[in-house]
């Protein structure tokens, strides 16, 4: 009986220590680096037109900071335009693997000036790191390295034009306070960023290496009528289609009747 109690005590202590270590790696790595967003939940309602997210916290004095906001990795299938004779048209389909659907990166200085290429690659910081992690595959054949680079650059152009990728430097404000350093930045959250969970990671950088990390989360969620309609369109297409046709027919007749009553030329 004592043995069993002892074994349970050891298991319990092991669990507590593991949970503690895990929480350190997930959240604030030191007493210094912290991060928080002004709101961790963005509600997409009827009048939603994007939002702003304030990221703030405390870091060690003298460290540079990199803030990365990203959605989970996935794949994107896009049509590839090319010349056929004198005409530009869709000539194939490209699949981009291991790339996030949203990627915002802000840093106190240019990323290449504060981090080695190895560190950028290790933590997925900057477009160069994204390119290395990604796979670009034509659905028909494998692309060589030069082609891959060309089409990944086109992928970045497409994402930046869609406002869901950006890399900027110098927009994080730093203030010395109580022996530490307060940091603050505002991210313009585009309405083009789809509903989902987004991970905000802040990296403290010194001597071209990442020395600390802290994380928080932003959730974008559809609510109210928007959530109801999106759910119906996805899960009950037949009913949604029927209602759509019915409303259109009703609106057409309704306006016809209004014009007749108003004596609109008939």
């Amino acid at each position, binding site marked *: 009986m004592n043995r069993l109690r002892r074994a349970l005590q050891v298991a319990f202590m092991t669990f507590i220590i593991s949970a503690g270590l895990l929480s350190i790696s997930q959240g604030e790595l030191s007493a210094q680096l912290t991060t928080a967003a002004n709101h961790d939940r963005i509600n997409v309602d009827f*009048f939603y*037109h994007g939002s702003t997210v304030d990221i703030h916290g405390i870091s060690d004095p003298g460290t540079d900071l990199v803030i990365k906001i990203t959605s989970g990795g996935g794949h994107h299938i896009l*049509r590839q*335009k090319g010349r056929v004779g004198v005409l530009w048209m*869709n000539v194939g389909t490209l699949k981009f693997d291991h790339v996030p659907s949203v990627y915002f990166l802000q840093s106190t200085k240019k990323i290449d000036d504060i981090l080695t290429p190895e560190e950028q690659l290790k933590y997925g910081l900057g477009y160069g790191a994204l390119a290395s992690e990604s796979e670009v595959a034509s659905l028909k054949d494998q692309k060589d390295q030069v082609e891959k680079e060309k089409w990944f650059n086109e992928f970045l152009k497409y994402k930046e034009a869609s406002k869901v990728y950006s890399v900027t430097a110098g927009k994080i404000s730093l203030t010395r306070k109580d022996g530490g350093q307060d940091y603050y930045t505002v991210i313009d959250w585009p*309405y083009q960023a789809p509903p989902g969970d987004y991970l905000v990671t802040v990296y403290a950088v010194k001597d071209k290496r990442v020395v600390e990390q802290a994380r928080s989360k932003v959730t974008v969620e559809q609510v109210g009528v*928007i959530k109801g309609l999106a759910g119906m*369109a996805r899960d009950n297409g037949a009913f949604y289609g029927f209602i759509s046709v019915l409303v*259109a027919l009703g609106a*057409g007749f309704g306006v016809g009747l209004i014009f007749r009553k108003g004596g609109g030329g008939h």
Partner: protein
Amino acid sequence: MYLYLPVALTSMNILVPVGLGLAVGLLSGLFGVGGGFLLTPLLIMFGIPSTVAAATDSNQIVAASTSGTYAHWKIGNVDFKMGLFLLAGGFIGGLVGVQAIKFLRAMGDADFVIKITYVLMLGIVGGYMFLESLQSMKKKKTEEAKPKKESAVGKFLNSLPFQTHFEKSGVTHSALVPIVFGGFVGILAAVMGVGGGFLMVPVMVYILRMPMHVVVGTSLFQILFNCIEVTFLQAYTNHTVDFILAVLLLIGSTVGAQIGTVFGRKLKGDQLKIILAGIVLVVTVKMVFDLTVTPSLLLVQAGGH
């Protein structure tokens, strides 16, 4: 004021879809075209994904064509008999066209065929209508009294079996003629991914020899049923109809269709034809420009037409 569109996953100033709907509804009431060939590219230009733009466009055409058909029916401009024959042909043609597109997609040539068909059809139809209307307007001034000669095509059509009189249009044709031409337009409409109004109108004017005002009402009647089918299928199979966007578009288009009908009554048939031809030619030039100038982005969203 901005509204969020739950299926397109984008936000839009409400004046944009209402204004676009009004403009396209106006064309619909004036010329009997659904306006899909204009509205879908415009919606894509304003950031709506191509698949959602095409499907939602069909939904708003249901409203605009209901409004337009109702207005034209009240003034006696809808030939229901002819409309039903064309509809039957269009339905069969649509099924054949969908299979053709499946085959072309499997071959990998679908986009090329669609684009080329689009440009050729728009160019030929627009060019022919423009020149014919111009000549007709000139001729009317000088030789109004001359009786019309029957063409070889007309003689052939008159020799076909199942001749029937279409009272509202004042023409007699074999029942096969509207079914076959309706089928032809149905195939092209399915291949090009549009309602086919801008193809159906010339068929009714030049082949079926229907009066222009009856053409407009009958075309709208036929488009209405096509678009009901397309809207339901798109919502059911692809989940790409955006209800909020459709409502905003139809607020504009239903009113526009009524205004278009009123204006249409004040214009002569040839004037209507030449304006429609001009619009079709402008769209053709824009498409040729888009096809030949290097695009700013070499990657586009998958899906759509």
